[in-house]
């Protein structure tokens, strides 16, 4: 990392430290929602299909923990994406006009976004650990990290392209549709037709495989999620570079 990028990253993290309410909410919101929603759910029996034609019998209560953890990570990461990038656009254009490399300005904002997203992932994973012992923690962690990064990238794109009100509405709409309804095994024992079109498809398949299967069957979904992340990361980088208005 160049000295300019390092300085910009430090300043960007310092900027976030001046807003302690964001950090407090990044901890409190997922903690409350995950713990309360699981505590209030009845252990109604439920059979769901995992990858590799594996069926597991579990309960709605057990399903609710991973579901809410994924949903919270997605919501928080997408909101972080929207507003971290909007503030970047406001301040960094002037830096770039003054001669600061656009690449370093973009990199510093992306690192802040990744850092804050990981806070949401860690809190959600800790809360999930309090209500469920997953069959495979590595798969669950991978699913939550990928959920955070993919939705942070979607939030960043939406934040750059749209007005903040429209951006907030759009990510609510997308996440509720994708992770809240279409992918949730609480409503569909097996994935519905066209569920694969949405970014949450590989994420939730990986998450529930890690939560309930002792054999890892979701390698294809892991690769698909990595593909989504790579494509979105490239698009976010290019859109931000373009939005900052230079070609350094």
């Amino acid at each position: 990392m160049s000295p300019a990028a390092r300085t910009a990253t430090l300043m960007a993290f310092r900027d976030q430290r001046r807003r302690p309410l964001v950090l407090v909410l990044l901890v409190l919101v997922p903690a409350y929602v995950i713990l309360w929603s699981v505590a209030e759910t009845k252990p109604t029996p439920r059979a769901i299909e995992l990858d590799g034609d594996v069926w597991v019998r579990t309960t709605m209560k057990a399903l609710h923990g991973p579901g809410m953890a994924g949903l919270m990570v997605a919501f928080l990461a997408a909101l972080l994406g929207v507003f971290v990038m909007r503030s970047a656009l406001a301040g960094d254009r002037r830096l770039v006009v003054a001669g600061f490399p656009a690449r370093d300005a973009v990199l510093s904002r992306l690192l802040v976004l990744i850092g804050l997203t990981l806070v949401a992932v860690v809190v959600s994973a800790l809360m999930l650990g309090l209500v469920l012992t997953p069959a495979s923690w590595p798969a669950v962690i991978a699913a939550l990290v990928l959920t955070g990064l993919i939705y942070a990238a979607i939030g960043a794109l939406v934040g750059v392209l749209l007005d903040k009100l429209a951006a907030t509405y759009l990510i609510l709409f997308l996440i509720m549709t994708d992770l809240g309804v279409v992918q949730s095994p609480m409503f569909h024992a097996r994935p519905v037709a066209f569920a694969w079109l949405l970014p949450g498809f590989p994420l939730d398949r990986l998450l529930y495989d890690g939560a309930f299967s002792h054999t890892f069957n979701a390698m294809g979904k892991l690769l698909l999620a990595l593909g989504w992340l790579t494509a979105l990361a490239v698009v976010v980088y290019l859109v931000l570079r373009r939005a900052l208005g230079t070609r350094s």
Partner: protein
Amino acid sequence: MSAFALTSGRFVREQLRAPLTLVLLIAIPVFFVLIFADVLGEFSKALGGTLATQSATAISAGWSAAFLSGTLAFFMVSSSRAADRRLALAGLGPAKVALSRIAAALALGVTVTAVAFLTLWLRSGIGHPLHALVAIFAFAAIYIGIGAVVGALVSDPLAGSLLVLAVFSIDAFSGPQMTSAASGVGTYLPTYHAANLLIAAGGGQGSPAADWRGVAAVALGALTVALAAFWLAARARSPR
């Protein structure tokens, strides 16, 4: 046209300058009612609630009105503080600016309410349509108050939108629609009475006078608080 009507109209246009915002203000309530409602009855039972499917469908209309209105009011206050102060100083005065702002928020809240109500009515019919309409509007009005207060206290858009999301999550997950424990602390939640009213209307039943009084008190209180928040945001600061 009076200055008040002109300013209110301009404030509405300001919020809708991105055409996608208007599309989403219409699409999200339709989406919530049509799609989310299909699964909400089952979800509520899993959480220990006792909602019939029709009541669950009704509550989804209230939720969509609440979240959309709360977010809208938050951004209205937080992003227009500087412009509102200039407008007030230019002669409109903070009271008229605040009244115009709340009129604009209510106009958009009424739009969301109407879309949610019509979708609900067309999809599943409503036993008590007028009750349902009042209850959905109460959700919107209460969240206009919550969003405006958050906007007056928190200027950072990320922290503010997270705070609105936090209040909404606590309210939605702990209310009578979702939990059997709503007899305790749940009765103090802002939309408790509005949810009772909407659940009853969705199921074709009337509501006790206590719920009507509760809804009226909370909604009027929220709008008063919103007016105060808009006024505080528009008020000129004395130089230090």
